[in-house]
């Protein structure tokens, strides 16, 4: 494979130190460049970050994951990235699977790759029933709003190639960014693909992750976004 500049964007907000360190070590051991975006955490993330050979950015205020990803994308653009990967810091995503996500981009089969929990039966079983219902509903909400039906509505694990980075600007500061990306994919006619990924639901990530009630917030963000246009 030719040498591509791959940047993994890791947004963090009040992440547990040990979990964050493990995430960074996993990524570094596989040789990826990391852009760590501290979204205004209360703890001193820089103190942890300076121990690793990574790019570190800090939001002075907490803006939300969408905003942090957008900051990371801009930084990656400045660094002439060929591919960016969105990666959660809470240990849910598996660094070994980045290769799978990148592959279709390297082959120029598509512009953006989404990770999906629902393409693999084994992965499907690890998801709680309530989460399944919300995610299934979310798929169809996305379908109604954006005309794209993915197997997994809100998966934070994605890879985007450099032409698509220019076309994707996240303005949804909080969690509705996942749907916003879909909207942009549709609007800018980007080619997309889904790849099965395994999400590791640890006690920590469950606690740290979104409550299913947040889907209500996301829905309202989307509705108001439509009205504001």
């Amino acid at each position, binding site marked *: 494979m030719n040498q591509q500049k791959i940047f993994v964007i890791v947004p963090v907000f009040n992440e547990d130190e040990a979990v964050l360190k493990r995430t960074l070590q996993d990524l570094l051991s596989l040789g990826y*460049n990391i852009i760590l*975006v501290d979204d205004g955490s209360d703890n001193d993330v*820089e103190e942890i*970050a*300076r*121990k*690793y*050979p*990574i*790019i*570190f*950015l*800090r*939001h*002075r*205020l907490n*803006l939300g994951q969408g*905003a942090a990803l*957008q*900051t990371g994308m*801009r*930084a990656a653009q*400045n660094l002439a990235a060929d591919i960016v990967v969105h990666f959660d810091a809470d240990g849910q995503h598996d660094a070994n699977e980045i290769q799978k996500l990148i592959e279709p981009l390297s082959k120029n089969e598509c512009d953006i790759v989404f990770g999906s929990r629902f393409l693999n039966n084994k992965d499907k079983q690890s998801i709680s029933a309530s989460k399944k219902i919300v995610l299934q509903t979310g798929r169809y909400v996305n379908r109604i709003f954006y005309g794209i039906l993915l197997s997994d509505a809100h998966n934070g694990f994605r890879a985007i190639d450099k032409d698509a980075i220019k076309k994707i600007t996240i*303005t949804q*500061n909080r969690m509705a960014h996942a749907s916003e990306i879909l909207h942009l994919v549709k609007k800018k006619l980007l080619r997309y693909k889904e790849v099965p990924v395994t999400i590791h639901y640890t006690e920590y990530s469950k606690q740290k992750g979104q409550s299913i009630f947040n889907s209500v917030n996301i829905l309202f963000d989307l509705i*108001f976004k439509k*009205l*504001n246009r």
Partner: protein
Amino acid sequence: MKLIQPLLLLALIVIFISYFRWFRSAVFDKILMAIIFCGGILFVILPDFTTKISSSLGVGRGADLLFYIAIISFSYLIMLLYSKIRRLENQIAELVRDQAIAGAKDFSVKKNEDDGK
């Protein structure tokens, strides 16, 4: 004239003046606000007028009609404020992002220097 009428008129006029004195907003907002205030003054001076309109609309009392109008204007106002807050949030995000990018630190460069020592 009942005592409540001059009181309401005074309150409306104060709000009316302060709105145009301190809040600058889109022309459409200003026109809308002017209509709301004029309507308010009209309804205070001629309470029977509301009853006339409301009965012609099939709503019982004039007060009920005012109540419905108030609900609608409140919802509109909330929407207006929401979209303004949204715009502000995005502007703040832009500022914070610019600052974050300007202050980006590349620890990999420093690491290499350390290794070289």
